[in-house]
């Protein structure tokens, strides 16, 4: 993507370089040519930003995960090198595989839920009707609410005895569901809340994608008998695909690291039923003060995100090539 967008700029600057060389006698050439320096100067701020705010933390985290990094380290600056010991601790801990499984279940279920509901709502709002703008704005509310506030509110909504959800279900004769207190249901409850949090993101992007599909396509399709579901399958979906891939990949990267919602709702409980890799990383670092082990957990998370980032870049390149 980057190479494509900069190509014209490179080409034009080479052209202007050629003309100036014709005008003036040969001066500095090669790497230190004026144009090159100008180009470098354009890149330097972005590069510095990346190194400072992305490179440093990632490298620091990698190093940290190979050290016995504890509270003492902050005061003395000493962190003995332990190689891959922290990773061994992580993988051999009883909670690692359940947490990994929970992370996978959580991510997949949240993405499917958010996307399906998001797409349905986006299509719904795409047919303009009275108050549709207002309602669409209202949909953004979960996004504006601080996650701590949202999770505290949901915690009281989902309370087994006095929670409003169970009281509502009770009026239909459904017995009280132990949303956050049964290990069998808690993960589902956390997933439901996170779907609620993620819907605005999905709606906003998908709605934007739908708006970009030219109305003429539908008009032409209608003449050929493509309406309703057919129109969606043959016109909407193919045209929406680039947006869909962005929404899904970003969704995965955002969801896999969700922490605040889980901490606010269950803190990893009941009986470790909602432990994910992100929660493990947080608890090892900031509850047990084992910063090295915590860093190892988060590096595993980064690695998984990286796989999806690469898929995203490849999918994007293919889309551009097409």
């Amino acid at each position: 993507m980057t190479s494509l967008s900069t190509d014209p700029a490179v080409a034009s600057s080479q052209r202007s370089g050629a003309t100036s060389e014709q005008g003036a006698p040969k001066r500095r050439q090669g790497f230190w040519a004026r144009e090159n320096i100008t180009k470098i100067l354009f890149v330097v701020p972005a590069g510095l930003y990346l190194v400072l705010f992305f490179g440093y933390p990632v490298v620091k985290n990698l190093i940290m995960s190979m050290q016995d990094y504890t509270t003492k380290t902050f005061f003395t600056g000493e962190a003995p090198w332990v190689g891959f010991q922290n990773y061994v601790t992580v993988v051999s801990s009883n909670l690692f595989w359940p947490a990994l499984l929970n992370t996978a279940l959580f991510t997949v279920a949240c993405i499917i839920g958010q996307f399906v509901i998001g797409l349905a709502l986006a299509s719904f709002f795409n047919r303009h009707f009275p108050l549709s703008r207002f309602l669409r704005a209202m949909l953004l509310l979960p996004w504006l609410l601080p996650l701590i506030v949202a999770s505290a509110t949901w915690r009281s909504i989902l309370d087994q005895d006095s929670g409003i959800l169970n009281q509502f279900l009770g009026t239909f004769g459904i017995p009280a569901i132990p949303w956050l207190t049964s290990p069998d249901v808690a993960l589902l409850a956390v997933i439901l809340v996170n779907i609620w949090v993620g819907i605005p993101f999905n709606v906003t992007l998908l709605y934007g994608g739908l708006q970009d599909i030219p109305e003429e396509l539908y008009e032409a399709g209608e003449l050929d008998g493509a309406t309703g579901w057919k129109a969606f399958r043959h016109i909407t979906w193919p045209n929406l695909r680039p947006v869909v891939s962005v929404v899904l990949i970003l969704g995965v990267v955002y969801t896999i690291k969700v922490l605040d919602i889980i901490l606010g709702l269950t803190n990893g409980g009941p009986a470790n039923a909602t432990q994910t890799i992100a929660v493990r990383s947080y608890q090892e670092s900031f509850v047990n003060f084992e910063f090295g082990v915590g860093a190892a957990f988060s590096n595993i998370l980064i690695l998984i995100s990286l796989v999806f980032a690469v898929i995203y870049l490849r999918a994007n390149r293919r889309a551009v090539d097409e």
Partner: protein
Amino acid sequence: MNNQKKARWSKFLALAAITPLVLTACGGGTTASSGDATTLTLMDYYNNDPDKGLIQSAIDKCATDIGVTITREVVPGKDLIQKVLQKSSSKTLPDILMLDNPDVQEIASTGGLAPLSDFKVDTTGFAQGMLDAGTYDGEVYGLAPTANTLGLFYNKKILADAGLTPPKTWDELKTTAKALTSGSQYGMAFSAVATYEGSWQFLPFMWTNGGSETELDSTQNKEALQLWKDLVDDGSVSKGAINWGQGDVKDQFMAGKAAMMINGPWQIPALNEDASLEWGSVQVPVNKAGQTPIAPLGGEVWTIPQTGDKAKQAKAAEFISCLTAGDTQVTLGAERYTVPTKPELAKEYVEKMPDMAAFTEQIANARSRTGNLGAEWPKAATTIYTAIQLVLTDKATVDEAFAQAAKG
């Protein structure tokens, strides 16, 4: 030519614009200046009123007494340790630092705190449990003006209507709680949440029964766990307790949805806000008659970080002596519903605060969480709350729970 000059200028400007970025990145890490000891910095986590204001007036009084001005920084409770660690790596620790008592040994083990004996602070007359909490490797690092603990609160009206008295033993607790359970009202409430709060609420039962955190997989601890399980299985305690913090427990009690609760005296101001609620408090029930109720000690201790400025540290020591002196203890204790940490003040205090009689008694035998394990306490605490959760959700039997939880 003119164009080239312009281009050169713009290059220069671009470089100039970038330079500060690079410089700021390399900067930072200023060291504390030394010498002038008339201004001290202080950090604590009392970020909500009334505590925030009450502590401020105690600070102001002591600052005047020892002739310094104190700049106070208040951070939210859960951010304090992170803030302390950041400040210790950038060598910008405050001159006076408040810590929650179970964190003292962790921070003292980093070498970031100064032993109070270095500055001749008098540590006699304090309750042993509180001293233990502030002690690391035989040296006292922190003192607390007042302490809190846990007790059994009960709703006087509900118990009187049922013709019952507050339970003294576990058997009585079970039958009383069962008798008080009807409709949407539970007999009892406690916090079994998957955080240290859950472990802290379990400790009075565990310790009173002779159990210990050094040997978690013991009969005594299992008996205590069985009690909690019985209470939940009987329906006397809501299953929701698995996800309730102590604030939630208090809300249930105040809403009349629990007739009794395990909680601490810091909830008293909130309880008193509801004039129609009549509450009483007793010590936590014991397993067998004759046992002494032992509850965990809560409360914050004041420490002197190693800032390298001896003059300021000496002033900080004077400040801590003032803040933990008898008169400050009684004043703060009365204002904040916390118990003075000097046992000799107990009588004077209870005369002033009759509501606090049970808690004052409880404090006399209370133990610190880190007294035995020191910096290893967090691990034991995690095992305790995990075991509770495993048992209350039927994921493990009482017999297996501690062993299973210990595997992490």
